[in-house]
């Protein structure tokens, strides 16, 4: 059964031992962020963290790291928590093919229970806001979904966008918004600003666990995130009408903030520690004026820590980045078994493939660099054999250490394109790229001494599943 709201998912996390309640009183800063930061440092299986004793607050309910481990990511998709990373990505890709699944409209949303408008609007009265990193310019909403419509085509459901964009609280009723120019909301804002009009937006916090997955997904401009959520859930996504803007928002949200992006206004924003492991900011960004807040009684504030990887956001964007590359490569090379593109949005990619003939693996690596995502990201490719799991990094390192003859198997190509934010590019936006062919040479490539490999026993796969299942039942 898919989850319709955050609360039902938290119940499951708790039953599965994947939600840790911090019962001691903590400081809002630096404890909340430091604890969530630490969740990414304690290894696989980190739980969500729940805080309700935060110094100075009377009724704060804060949850962090909800998607911050492969176990929690599996549970968000309704899979057993022991599902391997590779299987989760494969299942993600399979469900993606069911797109689109139309949403289901339900107007009895629980966030209709409480409303504030006009002069009563005060974000601090509804949300226990706090800072994440030392250099952040303020308190951020960093796991909210922002909904907006195309002002030139407002009735087109698919062009309505739901996306995660960082927002800095710059007043009781004001937020600074970062619409990255390539993202859909920037296109909506541009159209509105060309017309001299404000852009209505609805911001939903504390969503069901599939919303943050689709809100960070690189869909086409006219593809609906709600219809993708339906595909990933395996059931229609429940939506409701936001009362002030008429925008379609998740039924299960904890809080719905409505307002407008003020036309042609920019104010200083940031910095903010970002997913690249570096700060960005100190730029003038658009501003949202809040006009209405609706919220469930005793709302839960969900936030995520991000900074030096790995953090929760790497789990949120990891499969999203793997799946398009996997699909694009398999379309031409069905030999491709799996793609791990989870490192800094796919700046480094590991591909597992069977070989047609000698030299084939290098061709797969070159093709990865020329996919739409590859043009801007794929800077390093490690290609491994079909029996190496690209998500099992010790196994990948074994393949690289045992199979690579550097002079022939490392290929470096100069002066290729990459996103400007890639910290190592020089000048920004230009980089060399590298393929490491860690596959076993096949004819007519007869290099090396690979004639007698020791393979996993035929029965090992069955035993792997059996051991995992037994461990999970303990």
């Amino acid at each position, binding site marked *: 059964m898919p989850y319709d709201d955050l609360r039902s998912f938290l119940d499951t996390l708790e039953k599965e031992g994947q939600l840790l309640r911090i019962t001691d009183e903590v400081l*809002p800063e630096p404890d909340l962020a430091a604890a969530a930061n630490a969740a990414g440092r304690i290894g696989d299986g980190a739980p969500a963290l729940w805080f309700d004793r935060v*110094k100075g607050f009377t009724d704060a309910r804060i949850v962090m790291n909800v998607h911050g481990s492969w176990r929690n990511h599996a549970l968000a998709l309704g899979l057993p928590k022991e599902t391997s990373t590779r299987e989760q990505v494969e299942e993600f890709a399979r469900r993606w093919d069911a797109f689109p699944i139309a949403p289901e409209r339900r107007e009895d949303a629980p966030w209709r229970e409480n409303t504030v408008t006009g002069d009563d609007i005060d974000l601090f009265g509804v949300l226990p806001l706090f800072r994440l990193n030392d250099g952040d*310019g303020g*308190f951020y909403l960093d796991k909210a979904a922002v909904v907006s419509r195309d002002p030139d085509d407002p009735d087109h459901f698919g062009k309505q966008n739901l996306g995660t964009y960082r927002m800095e609280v710059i007043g009781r009723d004001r937020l600074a918004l970062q619409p990255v120019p390539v993202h859909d909301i920037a296109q909506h804002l541009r159209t509105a600003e060309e017309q001299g009009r404000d852009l209505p937006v609805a911001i939903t916090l504390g969503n069901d666990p599939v919303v943050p997955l689709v809100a960070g997904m690189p869909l086409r401009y006219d593809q609906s995130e709600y219809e993708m959520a339906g595909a990933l859930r395996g059931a229609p996504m429940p939506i409701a009408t936001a009362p002030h803007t008429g925008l379609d928002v998740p039924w299960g949200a904890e809080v719905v903030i409505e307002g407008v992006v003020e036309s*042609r206004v920019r104010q200083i924003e940031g910095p903010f520690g970002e997913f690249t492991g570096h700060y960005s900011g100190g*730029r003038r960004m658009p501003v949202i004026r809040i006009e209405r807040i609706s919220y469930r009684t005793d709302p839960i504030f969900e936030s995520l820590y991000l900074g030096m990887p790995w953090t929760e956001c790497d789990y949120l964007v990891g499969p999203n980045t793997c799946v398009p590359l996997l699909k694009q490569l398999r379309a031409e090379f069905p030999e491709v078994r799996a793609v791990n593109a989870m490192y800094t949005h796919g700046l480094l990619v590991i591909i597992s493939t069977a070989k047609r003939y000698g030299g084939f693996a290098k061709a797969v690596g070159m093709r990865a660099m020329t996919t739409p995502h590859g043009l801007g990201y794929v800077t390093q490719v490690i290609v491994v054999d079909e029996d190496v799991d690209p998500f099992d990094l010790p196994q990948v390192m074994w393949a690289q250490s045992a199979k690579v003859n550097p002079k022939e198997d490392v290929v470096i190509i100069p002066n290729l394109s990459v996103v400007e934010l890639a910290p190592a590019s020089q000048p920004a936006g230009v980089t060399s790229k590298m393929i490491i062919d860690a596959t076993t040479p096949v004819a007519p490539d007869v290099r090396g001494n690979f004639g007698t490999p020791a393979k996993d026993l035929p029965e090992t796969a069955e035993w792997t599943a059996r051991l995992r299942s037994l461990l999970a039942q303990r």
Partner: protein
Amino acid sequence: MHSSDSGRPEAADASPVCPRCADTGVSTVAHSPVPGVWQVLQCARCLYMWRTTEPARRTRREDYPLQFRLTEHDIATATEVPAVPALRAR
């Protein structure tokens, strides 16, 4: 004689300066729901926002990291992202 913090004003005092840009136009935007525990302050010029109970590296001008400090010039010359587009002809 060793140095001491005892003579320094608390960040919550009546006339704090912005730790980031040193402007004195600081206002209170929120009080702790439990009275008297903390306040959230904000600089009118650079919009920096902080809670008075945060570590000194975030709340005191003298401890604020150099790489995150802003000047009036930095704010005035900050890039617009995204740039405001031209108005469409009516």
